[in-house]
């Protein structure tokens, strides 16, 4: 579906907007999560063909011309693992945020002055 790709890309743009303009570090991580959802939507949409069904056989389906009835299973398989990895990476970023707060006592990224001059 063409609209689905546009929705996913709108989510990607909104996530980038959040990451680039917000100051709170937790808000930046939320932006990353939104980008994640959008990219997953786009990749799954790449494997979709209109009028077809999920690639799971049931009793009563005729084996033989299955490739005319099923959608592409490869993007689903990619996204399946990517979602779990996304959760682990989000947890890692949040742990970094907690440690930064412990050291600096603030979540505002404008207050971190080590890399500024």
């Amino acid at each position, binding site marked *: 579906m063409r609209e689905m790709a546009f*929705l996913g890309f709108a*989510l990607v743009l909104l996530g980038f907007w959040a990451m680039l303009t917000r100051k709170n570090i937790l808000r930046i991580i939320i932006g990353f999560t939104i980008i994640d959802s959008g990219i997953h939507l786009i990749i799954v949409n790449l494997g979709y063909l209109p009028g077809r069904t999920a690639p799971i056989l049931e009793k009563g389906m005729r084996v033989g011309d299955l490739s005319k009835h099923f959608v592409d299973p490869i993007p689903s398989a990619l996204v399946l693992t990517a979602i779990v990895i996304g959760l682990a990476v989000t947890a890692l970023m949040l742990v970094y945020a907690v440690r930064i707060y412990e050291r600096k006592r603030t*979540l505002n990224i404008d207050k971190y002055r080590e890399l500024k001059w």
Partner: protein
Amino acid sequence: MIMVSFYILGIIILLAAILAIYARNIVTAIISTGVISLLVSILFLLLAAPDVAMTEAAIGSGLTTMVFLYAYNRIRRIRERNDG
């Protein structure tokens, strides 16, 4: 019917993303992120990918909210210990 539900869900997803970016309270933003995952999993089902929908349902609405809330809870505890 499928297209109607797609449009309604898409509009809700975009509004939830804007709410997640601009809400004043951070807990509201976390809840909106959960709503985005919730509705995106229905869209995965519309795209005929039930495996992905199941993963997103199990991770997005439960565990991601949980991880964010644990981290924010630690930050809140550090702040309370410093103040009091």
